[in-house]
């Protein structure tokens, strides 16, 4: 057995290693440190038995307590769902107008509607429901198919011009130009007349335009051009245009109309989600 190397100055044993003449004293570890170290070892042993710890092929030891973060997540989701269950049952049972009248339930439904809107509706209507050319802005006060909560619910559930849904909103604007119903000049004339109703630049109220409007357009857009919701004919006298709000835009729409299509969401999303969406959309600021 080799004699331990002792440092002359301090009288303390060294580790026996030497680096460029420097030796390290082999001082004892502080007791508190040592006991903390032992406690950590004991803790680790207990932990590895109680909790998932050791990796195995195709899994790992589950631990005696059966705890896992994934299980914790599922528990939390289940708890959240059971918390929501009562409200969801109420929504399923109540007419949508009654839901909107109950502030607490409306807030719950609106929150659910807001998240469903982002998934299913924002692609066309925009994330803020601000719409775009051809896609209605749901914040404003113009509603092609009606802005009461029941009408909004109806529109979401059955869509517009949605194939295969017999309750869908349906209306067709004829191709006045491309099908040869009106001549170029007649289209120009009626477009100028329509533009004049809302004060668009370049609009011109002529007797010919007025007459052409009465013959061709009043059936759906109303004799006063304020729109007919039953026919899906939009109001032509206000500041809001679904397509371009200019003489050229109106000419293009009369010549070969673009007709928007909205899916019927009732069957896809279920009644509860549609009701939530209706409450949310109705609460955006334009609901009637």
């Amino acid at each position: 057995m080799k004699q331990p190397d002792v440092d002359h100055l301090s009288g303390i044993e060294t580790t026996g290693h030497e680096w460029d003449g420097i030796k390290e004293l082999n001082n004892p570890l502080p007791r508190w440190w040592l006991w903390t170290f032992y406690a950590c070892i004991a803790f680790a042993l207990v932990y590895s038995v109680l909790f998932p710890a050791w990796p195995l092929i195709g899994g790992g030891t589950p631990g005696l307590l059966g705890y896992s973060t994934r299980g914790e997540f599922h528990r939390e989701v289940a708890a959240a769902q059971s918390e929501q269950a009562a409200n969801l049952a109420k929504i399923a049972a109540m007419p949508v107008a009654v839901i909107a009248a109950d502030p607490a339930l409306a807030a719950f439904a609106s929150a659910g509607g807001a998240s469903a809107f982002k998934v299913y509706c924002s692609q066309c209507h925009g994330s803020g429901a601000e719409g775009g050319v051809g896609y209605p802005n749901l914040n404003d006060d113009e509603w092609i198919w009606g802005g009461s909560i029941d009408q909004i619910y109806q529109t979401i559930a059955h869509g517009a011009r949605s194939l295969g849904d017999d309750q869908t909103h349906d209306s067709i604007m004829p191709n006045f130009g491309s099908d040869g119903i009106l001549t170029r000049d007649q289209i120009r004339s009626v477009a100028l007349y329509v533009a004049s109703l809302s004060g668009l630049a370049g609009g011109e109220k002529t007797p010919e335009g007025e007459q052409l409007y009465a013959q061709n357009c009043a059936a759906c857009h109303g004799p006063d051009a304020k729109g007919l919701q039953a026919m899906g004919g939009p109001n032509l006298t206000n500041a809001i245009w679904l397509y371009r709000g200019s003489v050229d835009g109106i000419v293009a729409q009369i010549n070969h109309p673009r007709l928007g299509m909205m899916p019927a969401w009732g069957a896809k999303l279920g009644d509860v989600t549609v009701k939530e969406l209706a409450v949310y959309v109705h609460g955006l600021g334009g609901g009637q």
Partner: protein
Amino acid sequence: MTLSDATDQDGHSAAERFSVEAVNSQKIRQPLYAPRRKIFPKRASGTFRRFKWLVMLLTLGIYYLTPFLRWDRGPFAPDQAVMVDLANRRFYFFFIEIWPQEFYYVAGLLIMAGVGLFLITSTVGRAWCGYTCPQTVWVDLFLVVERAIEGDRNARIKLDGAPWSLNKAAKRVSKHVIWLVIGVVTGGAWILYFADAPTLIRSFARFEAPSVAYMTVGILAATTYVFGGLMREQVCTYMCPWPRIQAAMLDEYSLTVTYNDWRGEPRTRHAKKAIAEGRPVGDCVDCNACVVVCPMGIDIRDGQQLECITCALCIDACDGVMDKLGRERGLISYATLNDYNANMVLSGASATTPIEPARVRNPATGKLVDAIRHTTWRSIIRPRTLVYFMVWAGIGVAMLVALSMRSTLEVSVLHDRNPQYVLLSDGSIRNGYKVKISNMRPEPRAVTLSVEGLPGAALTSADAAAQPVSSLTYQLQPDAVLETRIFVRAAPGGLASNNADFTLKVETADGAAVVATDAKFETPKETRR
């Protein structure tokens, strides 16, 4: 030489001599790995000890009794005078109520505490350590218990060395039990600051209090017991950063507990014999009374040192001895380094010459000469302390002014991000805002919200479809924030730019409080002509 001593027949001093070693003295300091050597401080009596009892009574009284003080705030707020309501995020201090966003008042108090510590330390040294630090106060309290059960120093040393017996076990158990009870009460008082005290005590006793209450009490009881009962002076010397920081703040004008070598040295045990032999004799009779009372286990005669918390008990002990000997008090005293140095020069001490006690005494009367410098108020009031005081008082005054002028009504507004504006069918533009109105008073209030600086603007509440109005009225709950959404609509034609500034004004029904906030009204570029 008229330095006549009150001595007995054998020439021994009238002062009792103690056999004691200053275990934490630099001279005999042990390696860090050596186990701690216990200190058995003897009970001191005198002016400073009486003052410390008073401080202890006062600080402990404030700590334990404050939660029970009541302060009527009406039916909508707790009636506890001092309370940190974490659940509702309110802090109550008598007539002051602080909301989380006003936390800078607490930050200001902390800055004041910091500057106050500079001020105190630069004038009267480590007074915080010696008198008011919780560690010092609770160790004092624990020592009271220890003395009551085990007796004073000698009895405790004897008991400590005695083999285990029923008597020793009984004393030790009762001491530790009382210590633990003090610990639990200390932790218990702490949690009372965070909830209604009487209610919490009742639910705590019935084991119905929240688990965090029991955990807090447990942790604080443990730290109180371990720090105050077991670790004691080690907390100050090894754990606490203050001794280092405070030492840096002391200067030659700061009062510290000082052993005045210029009249004490050379310390002499047998004065008569020494005088007879013609040797110089100082006032110090080396009785060790100063060492035996020291709770830090040091010898103040080694000079100012890190371990000294300036508790001044050695002053009391030494003054008692000087009284018995019939000499002037103040061999150990509060003194500044300047005074000490001047007096050292007076005594003839230098690097090469020893202290000559005769030079500081009047040979005729035996009294200390008038040339000795004493500490006066001039050393306390000096530019440095004045600056500290100005800063400290300035922050205090600024906070008081801010506190008295603050509004108890607040409004904040957040513009809708998407969509930023909505074109309505009549051509006007609508903007949406989230508005928060804080009613920071424990009483319900009615307020009206109106728009100023936006021509032709009208308001609607987003919660209910209604006709646009010029102002909206809300009933604010006491001490609560009202969160609501409003719509502002205006014709874009009259606006100066497509993001016009305007003011949202909130006014109480009686007009007593008015607050306003700036907001923007966004319009599309093409509608503004």
